């Protein structure tokens, strides 16, 4: 087994779930999150330049972010070019959602960049400057996206509610 084989296997076994959670927050879909992880692994390890295995998880996360933004951009473009092809509203995957499900649905109503800023800053805990570098934005733009995202989330989620008891 070569060094990259072992690194890839170790990464999937030890950090696979964390990568999927990151992808899930970005795209909001379990299957797509797995696809993001897989595609990012292939692209990262498929490049011989990425020899620094110590930082490979960072590479994978960066590729996942770019893949997500790229796919979101394509979907937006497709919707604009094919208005008649836009399907009827999808069944609500979060119909039975609790507070967390509401947040998941609210995240889906953010723009891809707003959502990426929220995930990077509030979930990955990256400072504004690093979010800006990853997203090729200036820090001011990241702050603006975060502000807009928080306002929108507050509109959707409303004031904090007590946890609901399931029966």
């Amino acid at each position: 087994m070569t060094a990259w084989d072992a690194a890839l296997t170790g990464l999937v076994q030890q950090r696979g779930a964390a990568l999927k959670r990151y992808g899930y927050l970005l795209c909001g879909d379990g299957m797509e999150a797995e696809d993001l992880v897989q595609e990012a692994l292939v692209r990262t390890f498929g490049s011989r330049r990425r020899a620094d295995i110590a930082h490979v998880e960072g590479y994978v996360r960066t590729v996942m972010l770019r893949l997500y933004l790229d796919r979101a951009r394509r979907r937006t473009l497709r919707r604009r070019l094919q208005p008649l092809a836009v399907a009827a509203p999808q069944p609500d995957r979060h119909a039975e959602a609790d507070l967390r499900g509401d947040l998941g649905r609210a995240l889906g109503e953010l723009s891809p960049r707003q959502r990426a800023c929220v995930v990077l800053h509030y979930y990955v805990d990256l400072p504004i400057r690093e979010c800006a570098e990853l997203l090729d934005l200036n820090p001011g733009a990241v702050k603006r996206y975060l502000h807009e995202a928080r306002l929108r989330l507050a509109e959707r989620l409303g004031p904090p509610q007590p946890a609901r008891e399931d029966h």
Partner: protein
Amino acid sequence: MEPDDTSLRDDLDAVAAQAGPLRLDPTQVIGRVRRRRRRRTLLGATAGTALTLLTVTAVTAVVGGGGRPGPTTAGGPQVEPSILGPSPTGSAAPTPSVFECGRRLTLTDAPSSRSGLTMTVGPTRFRAAGLGPALTVTFTASAATQVVSSPPTLFQVLYLRDGTIVGGGPMLNVPGDPTPQGIDAVGYGFPVAPDRPARFDLGPRDRLCPSLSWQQVWSAPSAYEVVVLQGPVERGPEQTTLGIPALDGPLLASRVGLSR
């Protein structure tokens, strides 16, 4: 009103936890990575091969193929001392590893047999006073195999006098020309077996270095030697590949004295 940061972080953690475990088989991903790497290597190699072929074509056009008599072969003036004199490789300056007129041929790793394949150059036959000899090469093998090589008319031949290159080709540069060399290795193939040797006529090999003529050569043929070179021998399960000979690489070589 904006949601509380701490609450948002907690809620994001909770949403992320709904993702569940990653159901990904690393071996499948490794397979995809390998295919991607192969594809990238192939693309790079294809570009490199195209560049090499262009170079080889240009070099062959300049140097002239083994099948074409060179313009200096007939009735040339007397041999210049520099051609047959001491090898330029004896100087302190580094010399390129190309087959070059006037260069002393020093072969450190050039047996006539490799990997069960033996190459023997046959006795030379006189054709005409102004032409090079008729040359044949015979391959024998310890086990049946399919040999892949360049066509026999492009086998590397060198004429030597006192160990110094005085003619041959198709890879042969004029003195001082460091242009890289190569042979358009068309996938020529032939079978060979212990009871079935393969014999080839190498075609006209008339090229001599500047200032040397075949009349001069034939006036004292015993002073000259013919060497046929092949590159490294790679023995595979189904075929044996003869590479393009390079001066600083392993070679398959066979020598014979020039005779009428």
